[in-house]
């Protein structure tokens, strides 16, 4: 597997942030301890929003997981159970 391209990750983060700016929020990339994992945190109005898991499942994970070398996405301060993530994923099919 290739190493993720940091410029691509940053560009993708800007795109996601542009989308989320419609709700007054955004994301920023923060350092990850795993090379194949993108770690981001929510900013603005998204920071403590109850709908963060939905935004993560619908927008953030797909945006980064489609990049070469990225096998996981972590979101600082926002983590759901695998049962909840499966339900969310199923609801989007």
């Amino acid at each position, binding site marked *: 597997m290739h190493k993720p391209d940091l410029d691509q990750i940053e560009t993708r983060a800007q795109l996601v942030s542009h989308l989320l700016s419609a709700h007054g929020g955004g994301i920023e990339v923060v350092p990850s301890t795993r090379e194949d994992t993108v770690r981001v945190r929510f900013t603005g109005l998204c*920071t*403590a929003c109850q709908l963060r*898991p939905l935004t993560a499942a619908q927008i953030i994970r797909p945006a980064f997981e489609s990049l070469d070398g990225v096998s996981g996405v972590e979101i*600082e*301060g*926002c*983590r*759901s*159970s*695998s*049962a*909840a993530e499966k339900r969310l994923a199923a609801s989007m099919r």
Partner: protein
Amino acid sequence: MVDDTFVFDGVVHVADFSFENLKARPNPEQIDAFISAVRRALGGVVTVTMGDDVSDVAKGSTEANYDVIFRDAPTDMAVVGNLPFFGREGALYKDADWPLTLNYRLAEAHPERCVFAGGAEPTSQSMSETLAAIERQVTELGAKSMKFYPFHWRADDKELGYPMYEKCLELGVNIVQFHYCQPADSSHDVEIQMPNYLQRPARDFPELTFIMHHPSPLYFEETVNIAARFRNIHLLISPIVQLWFERPRLVQKLMGRLLQEVGADKLIYGSEGALAGNPTRYINAVLNLDIPEDLQDGYGYPQITREDKEKILGLNLAALFGIDVEAKKEELAALSEHEHAQA
């Protein structure tokens, strides 16, 4: 250390429960009131009582407290904190600085394991005295953090709170700690213990890291929201971890929610020290914690991982205090060998 997991306890206090150093011998009602106040101040987990003949731990003995926390439990390091409201307000002790002295003694005797946290109470002395007390604890006693107990003032009070935070920054102390969600007694209203009052200081002092002690069912929703929004607010999870033995289901719910919305990176373990008994059981409570499937399914709470537990038990606090964990592990291993050889 447990299975290579570094344990850095975020809250240890030493206190004197004997009559020896009190100004006056208390009556039974006063004893009850004192124990009750201490219990609430320390998150509800005090196991000792007051009397003529109390244990060495309850007398505040440096070595007895050290033994329980570090020799009889796998604690590697601890923040040892002054209890500023006992000394001056009500002037319980002949020496108003007695609580400070006891806690400083432990930190001074074991600097390789202890980080000293000072404390000041702005309502029981003038502001110039309060600031002088902070300065003395930092410059003379080496306090790396200051802790406050806002039972009779608000953390966002620009006359009582802000000068203390400015003083901390001026002295190079960038970690301040607050007792919240755990009211003391009927001398104040419950809402003074709302964590809401941390928001303005956290916004106005972005250089400071705020550690909020005692997230509990009281104002829990506010706590979660505030800790999720403010990067410089971290949560010390006493008394949640201490509730494990009585209310494990509640602990799973509270911890599940914190992991879900605040994140393991901002949670800090704390035992309250030997006054709450041997901390091994609380360390094990964190190590053995799991989030049951029905809570994962019904609330979406994530399972707690080994990595989460390592962060909570020590890595998060080590990062805040700039401790190189691997170097510290080596240093403490050598120290333990030395202690064993001497024993």
